[in-house]
């Protein structure tokens, strides 16, 4: 295909995505959805979001570039377009973001033919929701110290241990599970499994977040039986596989569907400016105060920089190395989001104290709630501190912290 033909087809596909999203935007559910998929708890929200994701899959916005034999739509270089349009469109997020963002990319690289054929299609349609069982009470940033054990028993593995901070654990039918198969070999003693959640020995206990919302869970695993065909890659290869999952989680790998947040960062900036314009203090708009203007314009500048970084990352002669910009994505994006919310609370002043469901709260308390939820981004999936270690070591070649 000539470059011109390809460009034209991409433009047509973008037009199609835009029109489809415009025409199929769902009516909001009867009760307000949480701000992100991380906090989804209730059955009605689950059903609403599963329907929405299935519809987007049917329309070709998910698994766009995945081969047809795995349930994909078999295009080339279309997914980035679909994902960008989903993000732009301000539509509900995809509930199965762990399946789309972590399981699918991991299986595409490390899965067997049977595993890909069996597990990928229901990920795309959200028929099967996934959760990620990596973290444990004693193994957070230092994930490799995880203790949950897997012991071989004929064709099965017997799992014992516990996981924590498991997002979507209460809704999921499958878990990406890291378990220790060799106590004497830290890195080569970990194996990667797909664990069914609906079975004896699995106990899920919700944990409330500082916001009061649920969403993540403790998961206790007691003599849980996993057949060997649910193992991903070789025994002892789990750490390597986990690293490829985490690369996807941190957004540094091409995905199979937008991990859609319902709002683009640039959209949030414009809302912040509007907020500052309509919020009055001592008889004038907060926007007229140069101190607040400067802070808002600084975060606007950094948000635009993130967009332009995305453009530059694709240009090999200007990106300073393939991973330099992508590996910054999560730490920079999450910190910009946090700062943006902190500014909004400052703009609101005393009114920032009003929380969700207070009848005087600005936009139903979204800024206070959103501010607290920005810690999801700065802590999970490798904290900002850990991201800076990774950037210093992998991109700049500084000595390893450990």
């Amino acid at each position, binding site marked *: 295909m000539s470059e011109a033909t390809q460009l034209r087809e991409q433009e047509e596909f973008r037009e199609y995505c835009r029109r489809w999203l415009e025409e199929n935007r769902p009516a909001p559910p009867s009760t307000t959805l949480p701000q992100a998929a991380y906090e989804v708890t209730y059955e009605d929200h689950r059903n609403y979001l599963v329907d929405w994701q299935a519809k987007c899959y049917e329309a070709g916005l998910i698994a766009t570039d995945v081969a047809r034999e795995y349930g994909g739509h078999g295009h080339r270089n279309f997914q980035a377009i679909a994902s960008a349009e989903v993000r732009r469109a301000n539509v509900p997020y995809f509930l199965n973001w762990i399946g789309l963002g972590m399981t699918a990319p991991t299986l595409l690289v490390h899965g067997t033919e049977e595993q890909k054929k069996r597990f990928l299609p229901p990920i795309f349609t959200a028929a099967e929701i996934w959760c990620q069982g990596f973290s444990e009470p004693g193994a957070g940033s230092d994930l490799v110290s995880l203790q949950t054990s897997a012991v071989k028993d004929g064709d099965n593995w017997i799992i014992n241990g516990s996981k924590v901070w498991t997002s979507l654990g209460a809704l999921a039918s499958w878990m990406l599970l890291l378990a220790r198969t060799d106590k004497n070999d830290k890195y080569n003693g970990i194996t990667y499994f797909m664990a069914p959640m609906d079975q004896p020995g699995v106990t899920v206990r919700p944990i409330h977040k500082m916001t009061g919302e649920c969403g993540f869970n403790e998961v206790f695993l007691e003599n849980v039986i996993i057949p060997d065909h649910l193992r991903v890659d070789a025994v002892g290869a789990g750490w390597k596989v986990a690293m490829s999952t985490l690369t996807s989680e941190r957004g540094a790998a091409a995905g199979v569907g937008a991990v859609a947040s319902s709002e683009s960062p640039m959209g949030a900036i414009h809302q912040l400016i509007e907020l500052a314009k309509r919020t009055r203090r001592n008889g004038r708009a907060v926007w007229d105060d140069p101190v607040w203007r*400067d802070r808002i*314009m600084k975060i606007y*500048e950094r948000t635009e*920089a993130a967009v332009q970084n995305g*453009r*530059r990352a694709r*240009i090999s002669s200007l990106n300073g190395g393939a991973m330099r910009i992508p590996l*910054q994505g999560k730490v920079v994006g999450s910190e910009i989001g946090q700062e943006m919310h902190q500014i909004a609370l400052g703009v609101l002043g005393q009114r920032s104290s009003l929380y969700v469901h207070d009848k005087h709260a600005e936009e139903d308390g979204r800024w206070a709630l959103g501010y607290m939820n920005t810690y999801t981004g700065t802590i999970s999936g490798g904290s900002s501190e850990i991201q800076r270690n990774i950037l210093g070591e992998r991109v*700049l070649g*500084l000595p390893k912290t450990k």
Partner: protein
Amino acid sequence: MTQPRDFGFSEEIQMLKRDVQRFLEERQPITGLRASLAGTEDPHRGNVRGGWFDREAWAAMQELGWHLLAVPESAGGVGMGLVAAAAVQEEIGRAACPTPLTSTLQATFVLREAGAETALAKIAAGTSMSLALYSQDGSLEAEDTEVVADGDRLTGTAWFVQDAQKSDGFIVAARAAGGVGLYYVDASAVTVAPDRIVDLTRDQGCIELKGAVAEVIAAPGSAGDVLARALPALLTLVAADIAGAAEWQLQTTAEYAKVREQFDRPIGFFQAVKHPIVNMMIAADETRSLMYNAAAAYDHDPADALRCARLAKSSASDTAEFCANRSTQLHGGIGFTWEADVQIWHKRQMHSQFLFGDGAWQRARLAEQF
């Protein structure tokens, strides 16, 4: 958005950028600069620094055609845009190179916006030029000029002229009966009074005009419009210089953190060192991406050029301050010495931070569009 996907970086521009980088690596302008500075270190002894630059290198650059790359073909130039000019300036910043090319590139874009073919042809023929627009309080508004035009004679003082001692001619804003216009004045017709400045890689000074013979570049009354159209290019070129210098500061500091050992380890092992270096990278990358975006906007999407350029300079000014600060601090005692190269880039960044307005200034102007 009508910008090309790749910021308009053609094969040709990528090659040009690599050529400039290689050329400056071979020339090592800092070595010559240091030799020229010997004996002038102590500010209390009041030696004025000479506006040194490598004249052979400048001649070689002209042979390679870098001085005329943004001059339109109609005036004898190569006719490339700001994307190419900013790519070259980024490399000049990376090398902290003292050269009249820096101000000549800026002058080129002012002349382009004025449609001043004759003056552009002078640049193409090898004349280096600098902008003489500021008043004593540093205002860049043409209306604030302290120079007066009487026919083709200019009288008054222009302040903060960059590369004042290196330039063959100046573009001066002057008030005539019909309003403020832009004029070309030959260096031989003015007195240059050099400033004592912090930055060792630039020179700066006042241009004193006493009935100096001038040629009109932009008619009386039009200087404000011309400068407003050129401003995005000026901001972007300084941002490009900062981006290049910041990358040098990042790489130099990271390398030092790998070789300097304390407490039995390379200091880069410690997170109080490692994490700020990563923050230098984050800052440098944000600036660089915004700068390319601004250059591409000027060339391809002029309606958006000023917004993009202010974003770039806003980021660049803050990056200049931060990277300079960390580069000295993380080198310890050696970083505080005259001997250390980080001091040279540090001062260039201090200077660039405020050229055409610092970050807070750009953000105040940006806010006005909402």
